[in-house]
């Protein structure tokens, strides 16, 4: 009796759609390398989840949310895959993208007039399975209907190989979400501090620190034209206290 019971459990645990809370998600779901080895080591599958939602919650606009994605976007675009940018808050600036190795010919920028259109366009991009990566900037909508809409996106993403990055405001960190990965971005010592709020598997308690400064700034420490104030050592000081582990 015990034997058959064990077998049933073992068979159940082999299912790819079941993951166990005590281990990182199985290797079957291989991730897309982020280009930062320190981060890859902490992400299930060794990279950004493919065919699943990743929520990116930057503490402030401009602290490095795109530099974080630079390597993966460069790698995907150089393989000839399409990058869909849906409802970006500003104009993606071609010279900087080129300098980061991103092939700007592979960019498709979608402007939308409402939150509904943004969600619709994102869903179309995922359903078409024509993109190497999908980036979408979701407006601050009231959370009520939100979960169902995100769930639709998650279902649309499944079966594809594209990583999907949803940029949202840090206020929603405490809301539940169907995303496979949720990360909050802050800064620490001039670099980028990535805090994994949710991943498949065991929660991660310490932030991953990444050197994400633009190279010219890192190199120029003694520019005669510029006063340089000492950078206070404020590790991860930009994380609002209400961030919780999901």
């Amino acid at each position: 009796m015990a034997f058959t019971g064990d077998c049933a459990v073992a068979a159940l645990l082999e299912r790819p759609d079941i993951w166990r809370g005590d281990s990182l998600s199985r290797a079957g779901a291989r991730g897309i390398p982020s280009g930062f080895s320190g981060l890859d080591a902490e992400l299930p599958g060794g990279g950004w989840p493919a065919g699943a939602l990743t929520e990116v919650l930057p503490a402030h606009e401009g602290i490095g949310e795109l530099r974080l994605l630079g390597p993966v976007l460069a790698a995907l675009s150089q393989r000839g895959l399409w990058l869909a940018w849906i409802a970006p808050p500003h104009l993606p600036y071609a010279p900087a993208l080129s300098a980061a190795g991103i092939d700007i010919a592979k960019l498709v920028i979608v402007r939308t007039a409402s939150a509904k259109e943004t969600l619709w366009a994102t869903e179309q991009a995922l359903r078409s399975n024509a993109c190497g990566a999908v980036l979408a900037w979701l407006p601050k909508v009231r959370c009520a209907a939100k979960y169902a809409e995100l769930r639709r996106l998650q279902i649309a993403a499944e079966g594809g190989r594209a990583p999907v990055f949803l940029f949202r405001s840090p206020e929603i960190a405490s809301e539940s979400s169907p995303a496979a990965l949720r990360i909050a971005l802050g800064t620490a010592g001039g670099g980028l501090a990535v805090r994994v709020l949710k991943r498949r598997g065991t929660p991660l308690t310490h932030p991953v620190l990444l050197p994400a400064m633009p190279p010219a700034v890192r190199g120029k420490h003694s520019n005669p034209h510029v006063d340089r104030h000492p950078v206070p050592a404020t590790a991860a000081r930009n994380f609002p206290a209400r961030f919780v582990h999901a």
Partner: protein
Amino acid sequence: MAVSAALALAPRLRIVPRDPAGETEALLGIGGWAAQFTPGVAIEFPDSVLLEVSGSLRLFGGLESIVERLRRGTTELGWSTVLAGAPTPRAASWLALAGEQKFIGAAARLEEALAALPVEVLRREDETHAALEAIGVRTLGELRALPREGVARRFGQRLLDDLDRAFGALPDPRNFFAPPTRFRASIELPAEVTQAEALLFAARRLVVQLAGFLAARSGGVQRFALRLGHRDQATTEIAIGLIAPSRDAEHFTLLLRERLSGLALRAPVRAIALEADDVVPLAGRNLGLLLEEGKPPGHWEHLVERLRSRLGAGAVHGLASRAEHRPERTVASAEPDSRQPHLDFGERPFWLLDRPRPLAETGAVPHYEGPLELLAGPERIESGWWDGGDIARDYFVARTRNEALVWIYRERRGEGGWYLHGLFA
């Protein structure tokens, strides 16, 4: 039966006059659609389309599969059909006329199958049929059993020749139908339609016909138009443009759905027509040797067209970079996938603001979310005196109190001042 007699039997009968021109158009439409299965399509007016399929059986995976495609396709086109097959074209059309949905592969079985058919399938003049009935001949088998000389004398040699062709004793060459170079098909709607979305169902029939027509020509279209006919007004035209030629009926339907869903009709619609003029060659797609895991990759052109059909053409674009020093003129919108020169500008932010935002300044320090700390600069950009859009600026990389990196400049002309122009993100 007279119309009055019919109305007496069924008072709610709807009387519609027969439309021979419409029948011909429909038959030609089916012929053009069916040409995707074989180049050998012959039209037999007024009601039959003959397909020579023996050369196509392998390609389409056998007779059953081809019959299933024909059945499904003609249903989608909105017709009910009787499908029959035989080794000779005449035998196949007679079987279909008799309503026998039979597929006879071997010539040996032809004799037996045809013998049971009624003589009406011969479609002779009324006198001939009356004479046949008078001598008690009801089936083709009974007719064949009569002495040939007698039949030839009473009914003419042509009747005998017809029989011989059906049984395969005489050759029966056909003129194959050549599909027109342009596609044009229309449907009279059974009732006036006031909701644009309700047109999609009828339009779908035309789209399927278009896809078949294009498959037959190994071509695709880059633009097509749906015309909506009204009672007293000029037609409404909905033009659909594609990035790359296609003949995908599902994709066409999706594009029409997006366009129709946002359309307010000026007047009720009585008829719709689909037109496509420029058919361009389009190669078929080869399947990969190994099936790749997951969903098959989609066409990005389809995605872009789908998004544009709802959001507008200008809402979906790619980027182009230009050899130009003024930051706001370095980038422009372009069609996605246009080749770009690789230009090196030094340190540039990922985000450029649509227009520079003036920054407050206290004690010679610019403020954005608090005082800014300058990290790198200045990079002097002076350019554009020749076209009136000249600038003179000193750009700096600065850090905000929140440790975001921003791209700011100090205006060197006029009143000066600090401006935020980009975010390094």
